[in-house]
């Protein structure tokens, strides 16, 4: 049989790091020994034979040492739940990388404002770590990260490292803090962090990823800050089955254009999809 894009490559789970109750970090290596060769922001289709496939963003930076890559997966359904039950050394299938990544080259030399809500940190982390590894290629780097509760914060240890760096600015917040939990940081939704930050209007790009509801409010705040639409980059999640621009599920439309999120996205320039009823 000839090559088919539907055939996943064999891959091995090297390491499993539970992060929260629902999220786990998987370090994965292709069995053929190749690197994945991805751009920050791209995703793979993770295949569990007999259960199905799920699109998952690559959470590690291509600049990471070694051939492996990392996925941060939230258990929400069939594939993701079964993934959570696997052990180190188990096999899965990987297709990809797919989609457009973040416009890394376009952002070189610019200020970058990362805004991550919840699991949105997973795709952003691949870019954040890229930027940190190549710190001199970017101007100011600011990271805003919000979750619903302290126990949901991901990559805690790594973030401790970010906090200590003085060449970036890191701010975090939680929507609420249950009684008895120790939390010294900010309380309030992520949009409450935005008014307080300084933005160089000429030079700043905002890169956003979070749950659908978050976009609306963050975009309103950024609008107040007068960041032009063209300099807002966001990553969308849609139902997708093939990752190849065929199955039709991930299409989003506005009156002027339409996109296949799996191929034309998941990363979009806000100016291109602004006003799309189906996008945001």
């Amino acid at each position: 049989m000839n090559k088919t894009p539907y055939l996943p490559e064999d891959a091995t789970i090297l390491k499993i790091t539970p992060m929260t109750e629902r999220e786990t970090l998987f370090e994965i290596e292709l069995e053929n020994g190749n690197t994945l060769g991805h751009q920050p922001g791209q995703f793979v289709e993770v295949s569990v034979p007999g259960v199905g496939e799920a699109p998952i963003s690559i959470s590690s930076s291509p600049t990471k040492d070694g051939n492996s890559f990392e996925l941060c997966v939230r258990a929400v359904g069939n594939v993701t739940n079964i993934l959570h039950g696997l052990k180190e050394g188990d096999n899965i299938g990987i297709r990809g990388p797919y989609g457009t990544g973040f416009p890394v080259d376009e952002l070189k030399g610019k200020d970058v404002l990362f805004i991550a809500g919840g699991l949105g940190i997973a795709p952003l982390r691949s870019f954040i770590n890229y930027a940190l590894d190549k710190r001199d290629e970017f101007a100011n780097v600011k990271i805003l990260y919000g979750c619903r509760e302290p126990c949901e914060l991901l990559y805690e240890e790594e973030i401790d490292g970010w906090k200590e760096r003085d060449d970036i600015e890191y701010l975090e917040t939680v929507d609420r803090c249950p009684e008895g939990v120790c939390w010294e940081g900010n309380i309030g939704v992520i949009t409450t962090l935005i008014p307080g930050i300084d933005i160089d209007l000429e030079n700043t790009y905002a890169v956003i990823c979070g749950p659908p509801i978050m976009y609306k409010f963050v975009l309103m705040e950024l609008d107040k800050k007068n960041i032009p639409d063209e300099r807002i980059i966001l990553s969308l999640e849609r139902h997708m089955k093939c990752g190849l621009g065929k199955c039709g599920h991930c299409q989003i439309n506005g009156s002027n254009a339409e996109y296949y999120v799996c191929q034309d996205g998941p990363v979009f320039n806000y100016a291109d999809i602004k006003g799309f009823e189906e996008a945001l």
Partner: protein
Amino acid sequence: MKQKIKPKVAFFDLAGCEGDQLQIANLEEKILDLLNLVEVVSFREVMKEHSDDYDIAFIEGSATNDHAEERLKEIRKNADIVVAIGACATIGGVNSIRNKQNHEEVGERVYGDNAELSELYISWEKAKPVDAVIKVDYKIHGCPIDRDEFLHVVESLVVGRVPNIPDYPVCVECKLNENVCAFEREEFCVGPVTRAGCDACCVNEGTRCWGCRGLIDNPNEEAHMEVLEEYGLTPEDVMKEFDLYFTWQKEARENE
């Protein structure tokens, strides 16, 4: 996929025709595969042994009296997972046609007007699906159930995933099978509001969808009632179309 556990399973029946349990016997050679996957500890229809120690309970039939209610509560206590199988258990089945009839008349029609019934036969005014009495985790729809779907559910439960039960109407499968639509043959059909998963088996055989898998989660009932009237049914007949299998569901949804 690997099997996590070899669960103990038990089969129970309330008021029904046992056609669903028959589908399990009808698995023929695949029964042997099934027996590798699960341990059957109770199945009155085929085995003498019985045990109250089970993980998954499959229940066929409707609850129609206090005795059934007691049994169901007992089953719920014992089982981790309760699966209702077949229309009688999932939506009340044809049993619930009588829910709209006068209960006294119902008794008279069957036993005559001077019948004095022994306690055993005292029945609720309404036949109820299992989930009207206890919590049900999964439903295998159909009258009778589809064998492949049954296997799919068992297999899913064993590997620990949620079975794939369609929530789109029968018309989908009917079209995939390239049937001549009932409405183009001067027949009526409730396929547009009925849950698929049967592969439109009745239409494939030249009849129509009767609705045995119950309403989909979000049916456009008003539209279908309107359409049925346009095709010449009286409002009364339209109601009857819906009463064949949907009586309980409709009542339950109205009360929501």
